[in-house]
């Protein structure tokens, strides 16, 4: 998972054609539809790569 649009696992079904209503929140706080620490870590990795400091992310 390099970008938020990439699926964290096969449980994520968001596509531009069939988009998930929780997608935006899921990007930073996800996964929303399932629990999986690996999937959470994948999102965190994207954030950690570009965040300037601890105040950077706004939920």
């Amino acid at each position: 998972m390099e970008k938020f649009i990439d699926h964290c696992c096969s449980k994520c079904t968001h596509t531009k054609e069939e988009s998930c209503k929780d997608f935006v929140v899921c990007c930073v706080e996800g996964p929303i539809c399932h629990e999986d620490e690996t999937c959470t870590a994948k999102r965190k990795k994207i954030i950690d790569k570009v965040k300037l400091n601890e105040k950077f992310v706004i939920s």
Partner: protein
Amino acid sequence: MYEKHLMICGATGCLSSGSQKVADALIEELDKRGIRDKYRLVMGGCPGFCEVGPIIVIYPDEVFYCRLEPKDMIEMVEKHLVGGEIVEKLLYKGPDVEAPARFYDTIPFYAKQRFNVLHNSGIIDPEDIDQYIMRGGYRAFTRSLEMDRLAICEEVKKAGLRGRGGGGFPTGMKWEFSHKAPGTKKYVVCNADEGDPGAFMDRSILEGDPHAILEGMLICAWAIGADEGYIYCRAEYPLAIARLKIAIEQAEEYGLLGKNILGYDFNFKMKIKEGAGAFVCGEETALLASIEGKRGMPRPRPPFPAIAGLFGKPTVLNNVETFANVPLIMKKGGLEEYVKVGTDGSKGTKVFALAGKIRNTGLCEVPMGITVREIIYDVGGGIKGGRDFKAVQAGGPSGGCIPKDLLDLPIDYDSLTKAGAIMGSGGLVVMDDRTCMVDLAHYFLGFTQKESCGKCTPCREGTKRMLEILSRITEGEGKTEDLDTLDSLAFSIKDSALCGLGQTCPNPVLSTIRYFRDEYEEHINDKFCRAGACKKLFNYVIDTENCTGCRACVRVCPVDAIKGEKKEPHEIIQDLCTRCGSCLEKCRQDCIMITRVGREADVSN
């Protein structure tokens, strides 16, 4: 993971002062040392302080380096990135700080600013939608999707958001009109045709945070039931257009534009229409005509675009900054925070472009209600060269001047209107005591006259007649009745011109007559321009008592009009002098004086 993030200002202002060359030199130095992978380099949005560009801000260290040159990159890499030591000589220095300032919080330019609309500018990579989302982006939109559409209009009304493009019309009310207008086809249009001389607020927002505009437009589209949107952006903003295109592509890829957005029964597509630069196309009906492929000319209103706009359909047309405010209001808890800032009649913040004779040129975002004095002296750092403040032109060619006596005027829609100016889109052109107010009025009216589309007679002919009179006055052929004629023509145009631009174009003349009538009278009666701007109405004379004969003026005079031996007082040959002002700028002893034509020196420069 990166060790540090280097945010290089990649906005037009810094690019024109050489930030790309600085970035290239930085990359070269990092490559030479083989350490480029450790650092993230972003050509981002504008931190606002154009005067001291090019700028690099380093995170997480929070260090603001400015006035950078490519040669500085070797030292910055060596000392800061490798050695962990701050390079003091590259920090901000100025008469307003005792010691070099390290970060935004210690630089006076930023002290009275409040970043709402610009909260992402210079912080995120504008070409990365992920970073916009990390900063809370598109949350306001997802919240809006769960709301009743009319409730969104109501919330925007409660926020007191007024159009930031000039008119100051309540945004929520405009949305409500379109929402209630019959019909299934509706449009949302963003006016990014920023045409005022000296104004670049919208360009900076578009370049620094393009997704904020898309999100504001999406919320509007959902609220009124539109399925198509246009961003009308002047072609002179290539970087803004490029970043908008990227933002639109990314939003489409993420399912935030297109069909059944986020699973809702909501389709919205967005297009960019590039304008050819006609000033009149900033007027809403002319802009819509231009999108339709017609000549950009205004039409009479009503019907207003909210009811019958683009292709005759209900259309909400707001400017860039207005749309950028919307996500701030519509995010969770946003309304409560939003209304805390500003005045009763003007909520929120306003982005201003500071230009002219001010020390800190650049972009600032300040709470509505801040005084002119605070903007000029606290944010702007005062007048360049320590000269006296004379006036500030607010609102561009459609606005008016605010004189020194009104320095404590609060900047909000109503106060500015009472003072004879307008908020406009936010351009503030500052003038010092060397600015001739008649010449200023002549310049701005000349601009609007050239840009007049010619459709209505009052604007087409009226501005031409006014300009002829102003030209005569500045050339020493003014008549005593000219001021009454200007006044009468100005009010006729204001009352009868077809569009807002025509109705407001006499403002610079009216406001300068209102506050600087004595200067007009001096031009007309004494044939004298004390500011030394109207070339036929003054002479330069050398103060022989103070002239040291340094020959600096002789060297710069392009027509050899200055005579005199070294270390002896010099003299200007009036028949040769073209009044270019080169000697005035060069003289270190301040002994070039502005005098009435054919008289002894009596006014100091």
